[in-house]
């Protein structure tokens, strides 16, 4: 059985947070290490999908980023609708971003799917001094039943581990099964990098 004909479980995960917290760079770090090294030329839909083997079954996570759309306030309910998990990112070096993260968590608990699994991600840990150990945040996470991770997208510390661990915590019943065809190889994204050289096709004339 080749991997082409395996059925997978697709699960939607949302990444939320204030702007310039490092959401997109987190996702890029994951996708770069895993998939994007070979097909650097096309930035397509690939970086959003992330597959993990859980108990010898391929689990596909559809990671959803709102990067660049933080100002579209009215859109956010659409994004976290139908999601199974949510990762709320905040910047360690900025205290304001933690407050917004709190607001996000409250909104998700009130209005989103009640079975939603929420994780708190403390990003940019390389900027933090060693003495502080994120005591406040850990307390808050314990009170509200959140998972907590410490990452830094710049060095790549704890990024892939977070996503793998988070996917293991997701309920296996939920999500929808898909047939893994050449589904993600199609290019819907119109940007193509030619590296300054256009390919010329030779045609044969009669």
């Amino acid at each position, binding site marked *: 059985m080749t991997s082409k004909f395996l059925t997978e479980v697709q699960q939607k995960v949302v990444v939320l947070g204030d702007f310039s917290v490092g959401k997109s760079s987190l996702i890029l770090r994951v996708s770069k290490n895993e998939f994007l090294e070979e097909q650097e030329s096309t930035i397509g839909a690939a*970086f959003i999908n992330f597959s993990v083997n859980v108990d010898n079954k391929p689990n596909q996570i559809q990671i959803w980023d709102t990067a660049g*759309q933080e*100002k*579209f*306030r009215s859109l956010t309910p659409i994004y976290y609708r139908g999601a199974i998990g949510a990762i709320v990112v905040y910047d360690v070096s900025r205290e304001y971003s933690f407050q917004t993260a709190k607001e996000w968590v409250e909104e998700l608990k009130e209005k989103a799917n009640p079975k939603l699994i929420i994780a708190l991600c403390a990003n940019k840990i390389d900027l933090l001094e060693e003495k502080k150990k994120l005591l406040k945040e850990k307390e808050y996470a314990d009170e509200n039943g959140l998972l907590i991770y410490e990452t830094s997208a710049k060095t790549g510390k704890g990024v892939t581990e977070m996503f793998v661990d988070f996917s293991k915590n997701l309920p296996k019943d939920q999500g929808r099964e898909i047939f893994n065809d050449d589904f993600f190889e199609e290019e*819907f994204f119109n940007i193509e990098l030619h590296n300054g050289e256009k390919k010329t096709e030779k045609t044969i004339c009669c």
Partner: protein
Amino acid sequence: MSTTNSTTSSQNDSKNKKNLVSRLETRNKETREQELEKLRQLQNRYKNQKQRSTTNQILNIYKTPSTKNDQSSRLDYLRTLVNSSKIDTSKSKENSNITTNTTKTTRTISNIKPKIKKNLIDHNSQNQKKTLKKLEKTNSSLLLIQINPKISNTSLNQGHYLTRFQSGEPFIVDDNYLKNSNDSTKGMNGKANSHFEHQSRVKQLHKYLDKELPTILPSEMALPKEMLDCCIQDLDLSTQILKPLIEQHKKELRSLESMAQLYTNKKKEFSATNEVIIEERTKINTLKLFQNLVYRNWSKLITNEEIFDNSHAITLIDYQGKTHKEISFKRGQLIKVLIKKKLNSKKKKKNFENLQCIIQEQTGLVNTEHIKFIKVNILDEIIFENKKYKPPIPKIPKKINWKYLNIFEIDPEETARQISIREFETFSKIDLTELLRQSWNKKSLFKRAPNARYMIKRFNTFSFWCCTMILQSQKLTQRANSIEYFITVADHLRKFNNFNCLMAIVSALNSNPIQRLKYTMDEITEVMAQKLLSFDNLLSSESSFKNYRIELKRAYDRKESAIPFLGIHLTDLTFLDETRSKEDKSEKGKSHKMKVMILAIMEILKFQTHPYNFKAIPQIQQYFKDYPSLNEEQLYQKSLQREPRGVTFEELD
């Protein structure tokens, strides 16, 4: 030809005339021969036209240049006319006497009255005799402003003309234009033509139709009154000066139109274009006339140099040098107008197939090239007018002038139109530089992206406004109706490819304060619910908005106007910006990054050149200027008021 004619005439005529002719012939043979050659050429050209014999000859009198040497040639034409119509010798004498009188005056006089010309066209020799009698009696002054293809270009309103002149766009229609039009039409029939060329060309054609009605008519056509009025308008060099003059001599000018048909020469030699004959003994250039008229009105003398500064004279300058146009084109336009009226009245597709026959019937033209030209032009315009270029008729609600407009009384299609007009304004202002470096998101770069941020703000307010409009009504059925109304509006927005507003409405209907109204959502009919589902599918996040991107591409391929949803493209741009900035900071890498970014930006901005073709209703536009709406929290509380938690259906009303 000429010599034989002259000899026969001399035999028939009396001695006086013989003497005259001999005198004239001796004066200048060379010029006369040249003139006669030209006459022959003309006659060959108009073999196919039925009434060529008399009218041509009369017109040739006018066509001759105004130099002193050509007096004799004009006399010859008159004489040949008399011979051909076989008028009695006595009357021809009188005619010749008149001509001799004119020779005494330093310059020739055009003594033929318009009525006479009409009669001559009718081929009745008896009538001709009568008219000749009238010739003797009437020595009254005549205003003859020669109808010239060039003048027709001055028919544009002065204001319009001036603005265009100031903007520096020369308005020149020459042969290249005609060639281009022909080529492009071929392209339309065969392969797909580029959208922009087409649009611009259609615009140009419309300019002609609106502001420039043709002056010159084919011979056998009867003129409608409107046309004639337009023709008179064409004649005024500057509207302020020549209006009173034209009103006095309306009749003459009208009859002149029928004469001017034969001015089909391309050569400048024949066209006595600059001649303006106002009274006896006076025969001036248009420029001189203009100067004199200005002097009479304002008592100022204007030199040639000053004319260039004077705004009134701009039309004249254009008339003199800048514009030149083929008459065949002019004629084609007029025929177009006439045939279009016929086609529109019938509204049958079969007419298009038999266009060639219709043109022949209408115009009596035999020349195949002319017909082809006309056919191509007509097809071009009519097709575009009916399908694309004409905006749809707006559906105006009854209570539009009331102080407080109720949206739910406006037709949903009309609201969709007005919204998309309004939204396109903001969208079209977005500049390329605004979308670089994530400047819409960063506080330090907010100044760079005012328009993009305004568009995002409008998006949010619009969706919140939709929520408030739905939550306004207390009754359950009203709320359901309003939701259905917005779904129909969204359906129309989908038709117009306005993805931005579609997304806003969909987000409003999927927002928490409305999704939690379970009883009202149950009231919606299945058809509407399915429509909502289809919108969700279209804008779903699956595989990075696959469906949406396909639709957007399709809209561009069809050359339809569209407004893309900004948010998706902004995420693309942020990812591009994040990846490329960290990789390599060499110059090559930077330039490459810029290339990629600009390609991504142009995906959005390429739609800015396709504006919507709808008519704006000012009252509704004013309504959509701002979207007064509640807060996010206020909305949630409002929805709690409408349907409190744990309420049964019976308790609601």
